[in-house]
């Protein structure tokens, strides 16, 4: 019997896949408000995530300029699809909408508060 998958080297921490996602202001505020990932308003069936913070930050800068944050979450392996090796971009993962609630997002890179004009 192979019990290797039951060994958790970090007691108290659930084993799984730690993934990062760059989010715009609307998604960031939605996560802060609800405490969870929600399906995208556009109707996409899943959300994309990166295995590294560096990848997520690069995506955030190119998608949203300075107006983005990065959230991190530890998903059960069974909730995640991938890795998908994307040409010139490295690995990405997807999480189907129905599995998004299986992880609790935490802020990795906060989103700056917009300056209020005087």
């Amino acid at each position: 019997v192979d019990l290797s998958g039951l060994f958790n080297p970090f007691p108290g921490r659930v084993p799984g896949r730690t993934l990062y996602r760059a989010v715009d202001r609307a998604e960031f505020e939605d996560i802060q408000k609800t405490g969870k990932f929600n399906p995208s308003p556009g109707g996409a069936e899943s959300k994309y995530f990166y295995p590294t913070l560096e990848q997520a930050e690069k995506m955030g800068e190119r998608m949203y300029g300075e107006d983005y944050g990065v959230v991190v979450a530890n998903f059960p392996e069974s909730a995640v699809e991938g890795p998908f090796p994307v040409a010139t971009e490295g690995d990405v993962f997807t999480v189907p909408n129905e599995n998004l609630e299986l992880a609790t997002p935490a802020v990795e890179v906060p989103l700056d508060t917009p300056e209020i004009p005087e």
Partner: protein
Amino acid sequence: MSHLEIVILDANQATLDEIATRCKALGTVTVQRVDRVLYTRPPKGMDALFLVLPAAEKWGAKPLPGKAQVLKTSPEDQRDGMPPYVVTGVVLRPSDPRGPLPETKMLISTALDAVREFNLSSDGEGIHKLGFWAVNLLNGVTPQQLATVFAEVL
């Protein structure tokens, strides 16, 4: 592929000048400077814009091995500056060669294949001007190598 213009976008004029010089002989590859690289804020006038898969999530991009997708944007997206279509990046198959040059060739060739297929099946006007962000094409690839890739796949 006739009637297809490739426009390479970047904020760095020196980068664009280098690409333009190397791609001059191809005729169909041009460059355009933007104030800053923002994936969903391309300059106006294109029929489609290449986006890496996560950037095209909003339009339902799926991680399909070996195949790029052509996805339609909404009228609201187009009011915000997007062209009518996005062309997605591609997931590598286990047998696909890895490394900056073969992956860039894969990215470009699958994008152009998707446009060709779309234009053949399209009753409308099709895609005749396709934009690429230079940052997606120059990941470990020189402008000279990029020009060679375009020469092979166009």
